[in-house]
Each structure stands twice: as C-alpha cells, then as structure tokens.
C-alpha cells in the first residue's frame, strides 16, 4: 500500500465532506435499545475506541450492512450516545462531536434536492462508508494480530542452563594509529567549524544516491562500509555519506545496527 493511498482521504475531506450511510435501523426501537443499566453505562461507553467504533457498533447492533444505512436514524442514535458521553467523559466529546457534525451535514445534504447530473457524480455518504470500512478492517486486523501466538503469552522461549565457563569478553583492540587518525579527524573538524568553511562537493550527491540505490537490495542487507570506495578518498566518502543521509531522509533505505558499535547494515525499503 503506498503512501498516497493514505493521503487521499484527507484531501477528499477538504474538498467534500463525506456522506454517510447509516441505516440506523428501526428508529422506533431506539429508546429500548439505548437502555443500559446506569452502573454499566460508563464501562459500556469506554469500550468504544472512538466515533467510528461507536458508529460501527450502532450499525452492527441493528444487523445492518454498512452500505445500507439510513443516515437520519443512525445520526439520532449516535447523538443520543454522544450526549451520554458528554455527561460522563467530557474529554472524549470533541472527536465525537466532529462526527456528529459530519453526520448532520450528510443528513442535510441528502435532504437537499440535487440536479440529476450532480447526483450521478457523488454520493454524500461515500466518504463515511469508506472511513467506516477502512476502520473496520484495521479493527479486525488488530483482533487478528492479538490472536497471533505471542511470545510469553502463548508460546515461550525455551532456555536452559549451559553450565560451563563462558569466555570473558575481551576489550577492543586499539592501535596507536587509530588514536592518531581520530585526533587528526577531530582537529580538522574543529578547524572546519571555526572557519565556517564549507566546501562544495564536486561530485553529485543525487547521482550517488542513484548509484547507492542500484547496488542495494530490499531482500538482503549490505554492509555499510561496502558502499564506500577507498580510491575516491575523503571527498567520495563524504558524497556517499550525504547520499545515504538523503536516502534515509526520504525513507528509501534503512540502516540497521544490531548492537552498539557493531557493523551497520543497509537495505532499500520496499515502497
């Protein structure tokens, strides 16, 4: 699923408020359905994850198809619940009120007579249906995920003692040269800072980004250091580094380091 899919709804919302379909079932049965023992009310309302969840509940309870919902009745039911919530949990109200407004708007739009050709183009409920369906599938996905065997809840890591000596971890080896080059690096960097001297890179970072991407695979990780060609010298390394940073920023690659100071691995990200 691409990023743009996610962004479309927001854009749509701005252009056109959604339309709903809420076939609130039998309006006449409403008062009866709404009766909840007072002491259970708060718990009951807390079980909703938000306005979409509440709407789904109302639709499901009436055994209605999401696609076939009379807006007016469901709006009425919805508002009744929101009123209850407002009394009990004020902080929840805002998101619910937004939805109530949306329902009211859909209702009013559906009551307006529309020219035939306009009606062909849009159904004011479509956006709400889309959102409800979208939410419902992830609500289901969350339940499915929760039902997966989980480590420590359903399955357990087997672990037994290995009663023999473990070698002690030796400290890293350091050569004098390592210290010298570290010193040189830091001194040079300090100089660069003090002169505010930034050199333009002769090599193109963009070009390098493409090169790097073409060598990376999404399936396998590539060792970070392999991306650097020693014969290009420091300049080349800087360009590669900038290219990598840019690629990370654009989420085209990911870096993984499995332990502190361990080797860094890179791979391209599947869009």
């Amino acid at each position: 699923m691409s990023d743009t899919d996610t962004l479309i709804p927001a854009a749509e919302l701005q252009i056109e408020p959604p339309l709903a379909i809420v076939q609130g079932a039998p309006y006449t049965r409403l008062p009866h359905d709404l009766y909840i023992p007072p002491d259970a009310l708060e718990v009951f309302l807390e079980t909703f994850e938000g306005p979409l969840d509440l709407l789904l509940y109302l639709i499901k309870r009436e055994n209605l198809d999401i696609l076939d919902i009379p807006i007016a009745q469901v709006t009425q039911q919805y508002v009744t619940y929101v009123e209850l919530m407002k009394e009990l949990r004020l902080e929840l109200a805002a998101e619910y009120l937004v939805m109530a407004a949306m329902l009211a708007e859909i209702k009013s739009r559906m009551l307006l007579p529309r020219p035939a050709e306009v009606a062909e183009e849009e159904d004011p409920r479509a956006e709400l249906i889309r959102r409800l369906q979208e939410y419902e599938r992830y609500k289901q996905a969350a339940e499915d995920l929760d039902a997966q065997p989980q480590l420590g809840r359903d399955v357990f890591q087997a672990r037994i003692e290995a009663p023999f000596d473990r070698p002690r971890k030796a400290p890293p080896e350091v050569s004098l040269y390592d210290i010298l080059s570290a010193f040189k690096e830091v001194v040079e960097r300090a100089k660069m800072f003090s002169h505010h001297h930034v050199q333009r890179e002769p090599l193109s970072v963009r070009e390098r980004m493409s090169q790097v991407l073409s060598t990376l695979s999404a399936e396998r990780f590539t060792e970070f250091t392999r991306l650097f060609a020693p014969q290009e010298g420091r300049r080349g390394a800087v360009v590669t580094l900038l290219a990598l940073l840019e690629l990370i920023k654009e989420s085209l690659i990911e870096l993984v380091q499995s332990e502190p100071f361990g080797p860094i691995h890179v791979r391209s990200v599947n869009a």
Partner: protein
Amino acid sequence: MNPSLKNIIEAALLAAGQPLNIERLQALFETDPPGRDEIRAALEELRAECAQRSMELREVSSGFRLQVRQEFAPWVSRLWEDRPTRYSRALMETLALIAYRQPITRAEIEEIRGVSVSSQIMKTLQEREWIRVVGYRDLPGKPAMYGTTRQFTDHFNLKSLDELPTLAEIRDLDAINVELDLGGVDAEAEPDAQNEELYKE
C-alpha cells in the same frame, strides 16, 4: 552420546535463549562449518523430532527458535505471578495500522482510527521495540514515519510481515452502489472514477 549436527544445534538454541540464524549456527564451528544446506537439513530433522515433544522449532525474523508449544500455555503461564500484559484495543489498533501500512505517520493513523493516538501508546510500542521511526514524511513539520521491527515479528511468532493475517477485503464501490440502490434518496448515485480508485488496494 555422539554430538550430531542436529544435537549441537538443539543445544545451542536451548542455551542461547534467543533465536539464532544460520550464520550464527555456522559460527559454532571453529573449523569447517557445515554448509547452509546441511544446517537446514539438521534443522528439519530437529523440527520433526520435536513433533512428540513439548517444544517446537519455529523460524521467526531473527532466526530459529525453540519454543514451548501453545498447548502448554495453561500450565506454563502459572509459573509467573503476573498475568501476561493485555494490551488495550487502542494500542493493538495502532500497532496493526503500523504493521500493515508502514511507513505511516501518527497523523495517518489518527485519520484512519478517527481518534487521536496517545503519546503513551507510541512510547509503549517504542519501548517494547516493536516499532521505530523509519523516516520522515516530506510534509510541513517533517512528521516521523513508523515501521515495525524484527522484535515485533519475533514476538508475534512470525517469520516476516508476509505472514501477517491477510487484511479483510473492502468491497469496491461498484458493489456498494448496487446495494445503495436499495436505499432511498441516493438510489441513482454512482461512483465516479475517482472514488473507485479509493477502494483499490
């Protein structure tokens, strides 16, 4: 007893207490490490042998793991006083969205869920190391995009995200439209092309 390759692997997996991948299994041998195929064959042998036992061999993201089978959870979970954490629906829904829609920003999660996502949830998921920031969306404020980690797939007993349960299908608007015909006011409403796009996955 004779340390067969299968038994060496079993010993290592039991002692490690965490999944080991083939490279790490090969690294158990100082000289002449067995080839990947040999290791795989021995793992298969081990898997078959476990059929009659209380543990099973499972391949998850970070490697192979010996784990106590789910059937034993009723007894094994009594070992610990604390019940395993039950995660809230809000957290699971957020996690599901990140798993299925990654990379995804917090605002995008909120858009789909219709409610704000608490910082506490994001923090909990990050502390569990189930999610991490994988990049930044090129939008004002550069919002972070989240993705799942190897620890996530390991925890949920998955080898990769491909093994996640499939998402429910969304009926497309054509189908919707047919049913809409039942419903009064908008009987004649027809989806335009743009709407149809929206429903494609």
